């Protein structure tokens, strides 16, 4: 009986902890835009959770921000194309899946236009970005597919190996780009040295011929 009561208490405390403690946080100014870069392979899901708190001068502590204060989230893919551009409330969760491999940029800025809201202070933003396999909610998957613990563990391993494989593919693609850049540099250096030598020789010849004809015209030679 006591044991059951303790378990219930534990579950409740855990839930409270998951709500209250929401990982890393940082301060953001009113018009400031904070951008984070995620270099990911294609077909990878990213889930971002954020929570904002505003400094309350009366109580001298950080309290959850008012409903009117939201965050504008903008996600750009490696080709600088906007794939997500939405405004969320003071607490939000955004999800997107990458379709091209590369550096995706996730930018956050507050939508506040009233100076009085911030009153010279900073907004505290708790942010958590989960990539790929970490974005899966295993409790949900277990409940949906009715998996035993062993099956769930194997499923997690499969997801992890999937992620490793995607990353390796992406690495191959990056290495190709790197190699192309290096070869292009090599070509450019080669061409530049040849062309410059030719220009030098041509200019030298032109200079001598021009000056000679000039002096002959001036009757000095």
């Amino acid at each position, binding site marked *: 009986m006591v044991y059951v009561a303790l378990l219930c208490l534990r579950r409740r405390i855990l839930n409270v*902890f998951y709500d209250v403690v929401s990982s890393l946080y940082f301060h953001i100014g009113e018009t400031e835009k904070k951008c984070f*870069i995620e270099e990911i392979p294609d077909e990878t899901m990213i889930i971002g959770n954020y929570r904002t708190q505003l400094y309350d001068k009366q109580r001298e502590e950080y309290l959850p921000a008012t409903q009117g204060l939201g965050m504008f989230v903008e996600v750009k893919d490696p080709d600088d194309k906007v794939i997500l551009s939405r405004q969320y409330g003071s607490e939000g969760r955004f999800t997107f899946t990458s379709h091209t491999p590369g550096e995706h940029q996730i930018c956050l800025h507050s939508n506040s236009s009233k100076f009085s809201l911030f009153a010279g202070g900073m907004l505290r933003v708790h942010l958590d970005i989960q990539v790929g396999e970490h974005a899966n909610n295993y409790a949900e998957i277990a409940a949906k597919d009715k998996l035993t613990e062993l099956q769930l563990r194997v499923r997690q*391993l499969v997801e992890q190996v999937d992620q*490793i494989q995607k990353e390796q593919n992406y690495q191959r693609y*990056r290495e190709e780009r790197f190699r192309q850049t*290096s070869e292009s540099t090599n070509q*450019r250096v080669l061409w530049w040295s040849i062309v410059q030598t030719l220009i030098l020789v041509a200019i030298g010849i032109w*200079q001598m011929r021009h000056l000679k004809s000039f002096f002959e015209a001036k009757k000095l030679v």
Partner: protein
Amino acid sequence: MSPVMNCHYTSNPLKESHPGERFKVRSGFYFEAWFSDIRMYGSFRVLLQVLSAQLLCVWVLGSELTFELPDNAKQCFYEDIIIGTKCTLEFQVVTGGHYDVDCRLEDPEGTTLYKEMKKQYDSFTFTAAKNGTYKFCFSNEFSTFTHKTVYFDFQVGDDPPLFPNENRVTALTQMESACVSIHEALKSVIDYQTHFRLREAQGRSRAEDLNTRVAFWSIGEAIILLVVSISQVVLLRSFFSDRKTTTTRVGS
């Protein structure tokens, strides 16, 4: 009797690693084995300890972020940590300038736990000695015009168990413990992959920089050559034109 936390051997994957070197082992297996031992005592106090241990065990926070640090800027991150939690801060500069940044880690009372200037990458492990908000800052204030991209990985405690509402009082079967060790090994593979990706990004950004510099330099130098040679000829011509007038004036 304080709850025994998991053994945590960490080697810096950024350094050259040999096949026999220890890699990160965060194993739920050891914790579960301990569990089955204390179950034998079966008392209220033990239950409370189990409860607190599980609470501590599932207190998990691990953040990995890559952000851009403009010149003359400082960016700070904060995290609330409970006493006794083992934490690791790892950072690497991905692009920008000389690929170095200042890093500083402070505990809730402001004591500096870690401070390094102009470091390219580093890993720092510590156990939280106090409850409260820990703060770590990256500073690019020594740089005048280069933006830096910094990657950091701040691991607090251990990963959450697969079943958040799990009630673990029996030891893991052999299959399950094999799964757990494969999971840990794969986590370390992913970690190494991340570091390799960052190194490759660094190398690639240097190569691309070099490429653009060579392009601009070659075009620029060709233009300068032409301009200088033409102006040389024009200047020389102008010398002789003036001297002719002066000689005629002197002569008369």
